[in-house]
């Protein structure tokens, strides 16, 4: 594997294109993270109040949707799904997965603050590892493929001409 592959960075002298891709990737990633955290928190809160829906029948799940917190959770999870689909339309799955995992860090912190769940030293170590991992992935260029496969330098040039 060539670690200096030009495909992993935008062509020289085209910084505006680079900034556009990276800028919109950061903004949509933040939306994906926020909607995921809020959705999970609302679902957990609602399901805790209902008392659980551990069943193979769909009826308890449908009944659970009527609970306000579960309803809010489902709405935010729909927003999460839509924003994530949008992000995946240009960004690599191998970029989106680790970067949006910051939601796990936020979920752990929110669980500790609002749901009185314990955050141990090991949890803090995990939070640190996730953060370092995300920082490493953020250093890579988010888009290396399209519908035809891997992007080359000429693909980047053609897109900028368009």
């Amino acid at each position, binding site marked *: 594997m060539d670690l200096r592959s030009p495909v992993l960075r935008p062509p020289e002298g085209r910084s505006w294109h680079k900034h556009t891709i990276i800028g919109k990737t950061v903004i949509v990633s933040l939306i994906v993270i926020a909607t995921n955290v809020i959705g999970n928190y609302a679902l957990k809160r609602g399901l805790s109040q209902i008392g659980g829906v551990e069943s193979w029948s769909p009826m308890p799940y449908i009944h659970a949707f009527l609970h306000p917190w579960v309803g809010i959770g489902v709405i935010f999870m729909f927003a999460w799904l839509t924003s994530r689909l949008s992000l*995946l339309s240009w960004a690599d*799955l191998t970029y989106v997965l680790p970067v949006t995992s910051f939601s796990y860090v936020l979920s752990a912190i929110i669980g500790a603050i609002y749901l009185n769940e314990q955050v141990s030293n090991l949890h803090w170590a995990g939070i640190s590892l996730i953060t370092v*991992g995300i920082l490493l992935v953020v250093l890579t260029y988010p888009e290396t493929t399209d519908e035809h496969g891997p992007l080359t330098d000429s693909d980047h040039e053609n897109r900028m001409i368009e």
Partner: protein
Amino acid sequence: MIGLLVTLVVVPGAIGDLLNSAGMKRHGEITDWSPLGLLRLSRDLLHNFYIMASIPAMAISFFALMALLSASDLSFAVPITASSYILETALAKYYLKERVDWRRWVGTTLVAIGIACLSI
């Protein structure tokens, strides 16, 4: 029961992610966020084989996550589902032909280890 629920969250979730990514690359970027635009998006996605194939996988994963959330702590249920990250990275490299350099491998591995720490 918890182990089965975790498997039902992780495996169909990984397959659904791969199909979603392939489908959205073929669809292209979403540019119209108006209600009419979202309706058109829904119509387009209904005709997208990859997206349609991902729906059953994602549905199984979602309902298993709901059951898992009701049976365990949020700080366990959410992080444990990230155990598929390395598997998904390998699948994306070989099936989606994504360029995965050392920073993505190391970063994803650190994230997976970090998530495992969170779930203990």
